[in-house]
């Protein structure tokens, strides 16, 4: 298999110095391995970029190339004026592009910008999408991601994931931890929480407004609910013993958590303010890492009730669980795809911990990675990509892999180890 290692900055992005990764950026993205059949697209700089705080074309280019489904034709400078009036299909076809992105951006006031997007099919000579956005300066990057999602969907037929956020934990020292929220490409990292003790198991709420996580700041694990916009947080589980592994139900009204207050570690359900706590799993072993199914009817979880840790499934109104994983002697950290048809988890084989995918319809199982210390896989909102934590040369990094295993990216933190990723929902249009 040909491994094609490229820094995304070196691809067909316009060479005017509009850099997609500012010097202060905390994450670096490498694309290793590419899928077949990449769609060639030309994305010249938007007219007016030289007066814009964000180079929208380069954000769109980076998003589309990172998906592995697109190849950006190398273009210099802003979109030629004649294409703004009437895109020259045959010309761009000879440049090798099957589609052309035509865009403009201009300031209306000091803080408000108008930006337009037109996606032109150079082969058929038709306009695939045309939109105008009026947004605050601070929302320009998000708008660029939404444009990338729009283009991605019009061409591939699948919904994109670029206008979404990641949250993850950064450790920069033995007593220095941060919970970070960033754009899906790692840009705009913001520290939601700083702590001198560990933070684990963050999870976005279904509406993307809240993060729940486990903090050890009280010298034992307790669970918080954190409003990302206001920065306010509330302690929702601090029972005797451990409080961990929080998970939201799809309607955002119920949480599943792992508590040791009853002796051993078992899963409980409770409301999102920590009341109405009721025991959910009843076994002689460890039950932990609950995740709800996409329809909220089941909880998948890790249990070693059978001797070794495996993934089980239990209906929300039942006390009986069924085992789901069979083909390895150690399976933990379940994640369910948005459509409920795939289960991702970490299997251990010959001492190597690897992200593994189980098709819940066919029960076909595939190991997706060749690293040996994978942790906590989670699905992107379109269910086509997984993000997980792994180690590279002793440093904690995040990685993504497409479900067919062919497109991979690596996100490395410049300042320390990064881990515990959670992928938030698509952000609503502004």
């Amino acid at each position, binding site marked *: 298999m040909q491994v094609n290692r490229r820094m995304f900055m070196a691809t067909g992005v316009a060479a005017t110095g509009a850099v997609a990764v500012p010097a202060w950026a905390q994450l670096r993205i490498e694309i290793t391995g590419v899928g077949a059949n990449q769609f060639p697209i030309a994305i010249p700089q938007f007219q007016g970029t030289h007066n814009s705080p964000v180079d929208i074309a380069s954000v769109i280019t980076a998003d589309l190339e990172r998906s592995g489904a697109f190849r950006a034709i190398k273009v210099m400078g802003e979109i030629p004026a004649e294409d703004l009036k009437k895109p020259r299909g045959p010309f761009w076809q000879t440049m090798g592009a099957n589609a052309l992105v035509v865009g403009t951006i201009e300031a209306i006031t000091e803080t408000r910008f108008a930006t337009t997007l037109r996606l032109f099919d150079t082969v058929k000579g038709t306009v695939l999408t045309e939109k105008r956005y009026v947004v605050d300066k601070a929302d320009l990057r998000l708008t660029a991601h939404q444009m990338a999602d729009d283009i991605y969907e019009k061409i591939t037929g699948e919904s994109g994931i670029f206008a979404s956020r990641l949250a993850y934990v950064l450790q920069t020292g033995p007593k220095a931890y941060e919970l970070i929220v960033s754009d899906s490409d790692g840009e705009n990292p913001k520290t939601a929480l700083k702590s001198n*003790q*560990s933070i*684990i*198991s963050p999870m976005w709420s279904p509406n993307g407004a809240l993060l729940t996580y486990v903090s*050890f700041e009280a*010298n*034992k*694990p307790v669970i918080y609910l954190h409003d990302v916009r206001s920065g306010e947080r509330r302690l929702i589980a601090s029972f*005797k*013993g*451990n409080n*961990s*592994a929080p998970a939201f139900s799809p309607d955002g009204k119920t949480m599943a958590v*792992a508590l*040791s207050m009853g*002796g*051993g*570690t078992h899963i409980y359900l409770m409301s999102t303010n920590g009341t109405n706590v009721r025991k959910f799993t009843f076994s002689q072993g*460890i039950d*932990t*890492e609950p995740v709800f199914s996409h329809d909220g009817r089941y909880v998948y979880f*890790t249990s*070693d009730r059978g001797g070794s*840790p495996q993934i089980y499934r239990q209906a929300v109104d039942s006390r009986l669980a069924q085992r789901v994983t069979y083909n390895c002697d150690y399976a*933990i*950290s379940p994640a369910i795809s948005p459509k409920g048809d795939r289960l991702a988890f*970490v299997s*251990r084989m010959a*001492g190597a*911990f690897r992200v593994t995918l189980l098709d819940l319809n066919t029960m076909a199982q595939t190991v997706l990675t060749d690293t040996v210390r994978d*942790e*906590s896989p989670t699905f992107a909102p379109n269910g086509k990509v997984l993000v997980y934590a792994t180690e590279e040369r002793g440093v904690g990094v995040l990685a993504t892999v497409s479900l067919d295993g062919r497109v991979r990216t690596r996100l490395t933190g410049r300042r320390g180890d990064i881990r*515990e990723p959670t992928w938030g929902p698509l952000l609503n249009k502004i």
Partner: protein
Amino acid sequence: MQVKTKILFVSMAMAAGLLTGCSSVDLNPNSAEDIAMMGDPATNPDHPLNQQSIYFAFDSYSVGADSQDKMQAHARYLTTHPNAKVVLEGNTDARGGREYNLALGQKRSESVKDRLQLLGVPADRMESVSFGKEKPRALGHDEESYQENRRVDIKYLAQ
């Protein structure tokens, strides 16, 4: 017989001192006089009881016979000081997932709690928690580091 046991305990204490890299443990936690001299383990980090972590073999969650003397030293202090309370912190080595290891560490701390209860310590003066693999004392990926991290620390709470 008595002498042999004492020597065995002292060498174990020294070994524990080496493993933990703590300052030398010359005091014998089996000696009530030494314990009384060192005051409150909650406020004195050099107290001999603070050097008595319980170690576990790989894949094991029960307190071994070789930890018997340490357990008795803690039990003796806790039963003779009715206001003393402890948090039992379980830990695991670095291999495996974070949440599952949190639960495995909990198995260890609960095991120590059960044993102390059998030795007469009331349950309501102990809380067992776990750090899983989040707070390793040794950072290597070798067996020696792993062994150092498979342990329960008994922390006395300030009153």
